[in-house]
């Protein structure tokens, strides 16, 4: 029950005026970022990170702000799903299936309220899970030696692409590209410059934040330019924001089931919020679609994926904080921020900086309440702001990205680097190569190498040390299983697609 004492301290940290203000600001900004189509949680958080640095907040406050944005995005994504039939971000795709039909039937207020309450419940389940399980996992991770960390990083690279059926070779290649970029700069142990091309700007290595903003925000502009600009349909109007309580109550079991499924999906490495919402929607459909109402505006089809994606996004914080290995794209971006603030997540974080961990957990509890309150009456405001056209939104996003990156180092070189990463990100996205493993490789590369070299220093160059401890053997076994599974899934998907092609 030690956790509860820490949690009480955490509330003391979270309830300082600055942190409350940041929390509310983050919740509002996050909901807006989530609601705006084209600006997802990864983009949003990536753009805000350099600005957070520039404001000079400490690590705890920065993390509270960004987590509030992150949670807010998950709430906001559903607004455009329901009112526009355009998912505001990736995890909200499933919400369009039943949310938009509900809105067309004149039940927009109900759909929004149901999804809001479901989001609240899912996120709360995740935060309770975080309170209970993260310290356990961190306690376990204390026993990890350098060789075990090396094995853990390998597992993380193999699993981060998820089991979405994308070619697993591309995912691994993406991680390896990230690792290659991570080696540029002065070698941390011997001080020898590697891959710097005698450019002194590269001696410190590639700043992960610069790479992130380029990879996500700039490449998004290039993606948008591919297609003809279309005027979006006007959103479905709202008569009132007061929902019927009965409609919300009728979805209670869908919410409970969705939260649990989503939470499990979130904790698993490499799954993240998108998989959480997909899994909880399909489970709910199997469990309760007796009359074929799913897809035609069934409230349970709105509640389950929303509970699922919020539970998953909270669950994804567990491996990020306790092992230092993020479970999703956005948590990878948050890891980048922590590393840049000289906070190394992992088991020691819970011992050395309990203020940060528990302050964050407490502010997530508060943030959830704030988001629920913020979201119900202010939905009209968000739905109006959502109508900002892309041509007006993206130039502002570009300008803010430049200011953020420029403020880190005041160097034009970083701006050029950001644009280059934008082009790289665009090309990789076109080739169906996910960017998240690359970011993870870039972030964890240095640590992975350090742990490998430490392990081999201890063993005096004996490579067998990597396979000695039961922990690393288990991790390698998991890696092998996961790799096998993803190869099998990719092959099965391809066969199915070929079968469909020959049939049609």
């Amino acid at each position: 029950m030690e956790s509860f004492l820490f949690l009480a301290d955490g509330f003391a940290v979270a309830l300082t005026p600055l942190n409350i203000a940041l929390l509310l600001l983050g919740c509002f900004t996050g909901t807006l970022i989530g609601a705006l189509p084209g600006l997802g949680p990864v983009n949003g958080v990536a753009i805000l990170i350099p600005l957070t640095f520039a404001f000079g907040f400490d690590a705890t406050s920065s993390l509270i702000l960004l987590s509030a944005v992150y949670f807010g995005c998950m709430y906001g994504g559903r607004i455009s799903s329901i009112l526009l039939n355009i998912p505001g971000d990736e995890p909200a795709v499933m919400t369009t299936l039943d949310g938009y039909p509900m809105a067309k039937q004149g039940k927009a207020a109900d759909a929004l309220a149901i999804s809001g309450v479901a989001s609240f419940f899912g996120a709360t389940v995740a935060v309770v899970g975080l309170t209970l399980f993260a310290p356990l996992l961190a306690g376990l991770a204390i026993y990890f030696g350098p060789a075990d960390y090396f094995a853990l990083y390998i597992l993380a690279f193999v699993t981060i692409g998820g089991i979405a059926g994308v070619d697993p070779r591309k995912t691994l290649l993406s991680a390896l590209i990230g690792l290659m970029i991570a080696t540029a700069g002065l070698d941390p142990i011997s001080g020898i410059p590697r891959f710097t091309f005698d450019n002194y700007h590269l001696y410190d290595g590639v700043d992960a934040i610069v790479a992130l903003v380029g990879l996500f925000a700039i490449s998004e502009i290039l993606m948008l330019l591919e297609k003809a600009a279309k005027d979006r349909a006007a959103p479905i109007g709202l008569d009132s924001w007061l929902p019927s309580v009965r409609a919300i109550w009728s979805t209670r079991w869908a919410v409970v089931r969705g939260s649990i499924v989503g939470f499990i999906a979130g904790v698993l490495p490499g799954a993240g919020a998108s998989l959480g919402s997909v899994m909880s929607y399909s489970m709910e459909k199997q469990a309760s679609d007796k009359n074929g109402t799913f897809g035609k505006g069934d409230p349970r089809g709105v509640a389950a994926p929303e509970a699922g994606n919020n539970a998953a996004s909270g669950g994804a914080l567990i491996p990020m904080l306790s092992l230092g290995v993020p479970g999703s794209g956005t948590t990878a971006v948050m890891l980048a921020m922590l590393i840049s603030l000289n906070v190394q997540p992992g088991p020691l974080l819970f011992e050395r900086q309990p203020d940060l961990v528990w302050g964050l957990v407490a502010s997530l509890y508060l943030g959830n309440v704030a988001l629920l309150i913020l979201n119900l009456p202010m939905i009209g405001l968000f739905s109006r702001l959502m109508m900002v056209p892309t041509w007006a939104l993206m130039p502002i996003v570009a300008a803010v990205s430049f200011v953020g990156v420029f403020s880190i180092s005041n160097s034009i070189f970083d701006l050029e680097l950001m644009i280059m990463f934008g082009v790289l990100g665009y090309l990789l996205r076109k080739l169906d190569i996910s960017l998240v493993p690359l970011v993870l490789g870039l972030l964890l590369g240095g640590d992975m190498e350090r742990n490998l070299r430490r392990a081999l220093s201890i063993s005096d160059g004996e490579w067998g040390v990597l396979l000695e401890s039961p922990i690393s053997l288990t991790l390698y076994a998991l890696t092998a299983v996961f790799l096998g599974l993803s190869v099998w899934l990719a092959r099965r998907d391809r066969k199915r697609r070929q079968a469909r092609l020959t049939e049609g």
Partner: protein
Amino acid sequence: MSVRLAGVAIFMIAALFTWYGRGYTASFGDVLGPGVFPVIVGIPAMILSASLVVFPSGQVEWPERPYLVRQLAALAILAGYAWLLGPLGFPLATFGLIVGIGIVLGGAPLKAVILGALFAPALWALFDQVLGLPLAVLGDWFG
């Protein structure tokens, strides 16, 4: 085809990376030295990219020429912003960025100019005045 070409490009980069990485040595320090990790990373990257050349997966549809031109224009504007931020100062350069990207993205030119005229000074005021990030009002060219 695109996947094959990308595979070739990544293979070349990984091969060069491995080749140069191998050469980094330190006369003292730890057992492994700075040259081994690049080899550990580079060789699997070479194998995977080679396998993409031989067995490519997925189709890539590149944008048609007019859209490609718009993308290049956007990149030129972004690069121009990076280089002109110093000489022009923040508000003026940002005005150009917002107007340029706005028009490339299909906004009406007049509306884009109004957007830029409103937001460039507003962003400067927000970041420089309110949030305390130093951003030059007038660039090197003006004094």
